[in-house]
């Protein structure tokens, strides 16, 4: 099997889909000739031509709106928003149009659009290149929301997203593009070739939406996470010597509530971790579900680990980022004897 980083895995997913399905088109700012500011679409315009891989004007609302129209006319657009922080001009087209088209037309119209966008911090991007806005979109009914934590899942999930007849927002944690990141900024960067999920099949395969991955089985406590925080939380639990069951949600909508609840019923303890801000974050939804389904199995209050409720500050990146220390503090509370 080939070794790929997340950039190559995503590129391979789109390459496979452009090759298999003439309806698939890519569109976005700087994605064509240049291959994207993170190189995710590198070489695809050269291979498939300027009518399959389109550079667009800088207009996120225009990109999403045009993608909807193209999808309604039989294409299967994969639109890139250059940074998740720049998705908001497209928000009306996403929340009011893309998400509701099937519903309001009683299924007569639908738009199989995939929106890819890099998210998350850890690259000194300041408040406009670091946000994790997934929770805003999970609150909109009618769009699926995905965030992979490794190259294997990234490729399989992206292929599933493109083949899905419903719209999908596909968040790519940019700090994970080149290697897994466990939150330890003093350690030299590690490439994906050192990680088993850096092994990626060259051809077509899918990873289903709505099916969480049990990254590690354990009996002391359940950690529920997605994206970059899967790696940070796993490292923190290991450092604390806790036998944690680690669940990588992979897709937030649809959500694999069964895997969450069966694990928490088993361990009785739970920490939920995401990079996004805490207040009204997606973690609150997970905690609510657990409270409803597993209340009598809980041995300690469920803990949340998240970004602080401030914009992402340039100078305080590592004080802001949910570190292993923040996870450790939550683990400590969650592990207190009943």
């Amino acid at each position, binding site marked *: 099997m080939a070794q790929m980083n997340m950039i190559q895995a995503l590129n391979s997913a789109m390459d496979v889909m452009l090759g298999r399905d003439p309806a698939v088109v890519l569109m976005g700012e700087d994605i064509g000739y240049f291959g994207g500011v993170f190189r995710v679409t590198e070489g695809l315009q050269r291979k498939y031509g300027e009518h399959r891989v389109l550079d667009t004007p800088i*207009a996120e609302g225009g990109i999403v709106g045009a993608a909807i129209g193209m999808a309604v006319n039989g294409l299967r657009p994969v639109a890139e928003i250059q940074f998740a922080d720049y998705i908001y001009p497209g928000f009306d087209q996403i929340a009011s149009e893309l998400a509701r088209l099937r519903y309001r037309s009683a299924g007569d119209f639908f738009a199989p659009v995939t929106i890819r966008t890099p998210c998350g911090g850890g690259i000194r991007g300041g408040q406009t290149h670091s946000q994790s806005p997934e929770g805003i979109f999970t609150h909109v009914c009618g769009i699926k929301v995905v965030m992979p934590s490794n190259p294997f899942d990234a490729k399989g999930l992206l292929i599933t997203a493109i083949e899905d007849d419903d719209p999908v927002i596909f968040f790519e944690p940019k700090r994970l593009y080149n290697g897994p990141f466990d939150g330890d900024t003093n350690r030299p960067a590690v490439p994906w070739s050192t990680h088993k999920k850096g092994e990626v099949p060259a051809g077509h395969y899918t990873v289903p939406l709505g099916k969480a991955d049990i990254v590690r089985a354990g009996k002391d406590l359940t950690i529920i996470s997605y994206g970059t925080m899967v790696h940070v939380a796993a490292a923190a639990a290991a450092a604390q010597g806790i036998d944690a069951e680690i669940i990588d949600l992979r897709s937030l909508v649809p959500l694999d509530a069964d895997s969450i609840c069966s694990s928490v019923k088993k361990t009785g303890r739970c920490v939920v971790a995401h990079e996004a801000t805490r207040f009204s974050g997606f973690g609150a939804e997970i905690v609510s579900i657990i409270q409803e389904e597993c209340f009598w199995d809980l041995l300690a209050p469920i803990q949340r680990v998240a970004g602080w409720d401030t914009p992402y500050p340039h100078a305080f990146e590592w004080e802001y980022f949910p570190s292993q220390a923040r996870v450790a503090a939550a683990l400590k509370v969650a592990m207190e004897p009943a």
Partner: protein
Amino acid sequence: MQRRSRLHVPPTPARPGEAPDFSYLQLSEAGAVRRPDVSARAREIGFLSLELVRVLDDKHEARGPWDPHLDAAELEIGLRHMLLTRIFDERMQRTQRAGKISFYMRSLGDEAVAVAQCMALRPGDMLFPSYRNQGLHIVRGIPLVDMMCQLLSNTRDMCKGRQLPVMYHSAAGRLFSISGNLGTQFPQAVGWAMAAAIKGEDHLAASWIGEGASAEADFHHALLFAAVYQAPVILNVVNNQWAISTFQGYAGGEQRSFAARGPGYGIAGVRVDGNDFLAVHAVTQWAAQRARTGAGPTLIELVTYRAAAHSTSDDPARYRAKDDYAHWPLGDPIERLKQHLIKHGGWSEERHRALAAELESLVAASWKEAATYGTLTEGPRLDPDLMFEDVFKEMPLNLQRQREAMRAERNSK
């Protein structure tokens, strides 16, 4: 004749390995474009949005009705500001490469835009810059040390460490907080100008946007509101031909000029040689007079060239022709004003070299001072507690608690 619809892909004149090609550029002769009265109605002066206002000709002479007749002392100030902007940019670029700041964006090649425009405005006018207008801050007298401290996110940073480098602001200098999101400042400038008109003040607002960012809906909102309320605002599109890797044709520049969008909304549109200090100054002064006399908003397209990379994260060798800037037909703004001054203002190569040396020393001394307030890697650091301030005027309880948690987290490391 073609019998089917087709998808047009805007051509890019020259990619790596090809010879630079600027034959697409529509030029006018210096001095050839008529200068209408400032009271002219937008619909009567559509030609201004299609021709190119130029004053300095190829022999560095000032020509025609747009010559602002600035005296030599004023021009020397303009030259100084442009040169300082360039030297500052060069030094900050090197500083980023040395790992002292995280990111930088140069304005190389379009220094005349910010400098000449700001000099044509009054101190009370409110400026809504984009991230490539450092000349505005320099002309407004923001100390270089203050700008450098922002770039360093250090203990004297006006943004208290919250913004990426180059996202300056100065409330006292009437320079609005720069956003990393594109085009958002355009309708805000219109609103500021509407407020000035509501309050009966004589101030105008001016804003800058790249031609690439003019694709955003905010650009169109700004033009619409400016037209509806005839707001005293100057809306500037800096057409530097490139939006990172994407040629201006992708922003709509292939079919018609950006200035021509003004008349489409009922606003005066002017297309000007953005590398011609005199022309930029004159056009801005004309637009300012219109704003101050109730003749309404003006959309100015400044035709220039992004000589450098988009930012320190970008490498233009991947997507455009090598040495393209050397072939740019509108030359270099500093060189052109310098040659004009040598011809008519008593300027000389020796004085120019002396000025450059003086400004190099100023930038070096400023950097030395700024670094004492901390860099990314050494010296004093802002207190991370500051992260929780200014989210709201008063810090809510959840943020107070999070601040406590962060302190505990730092002590545990």
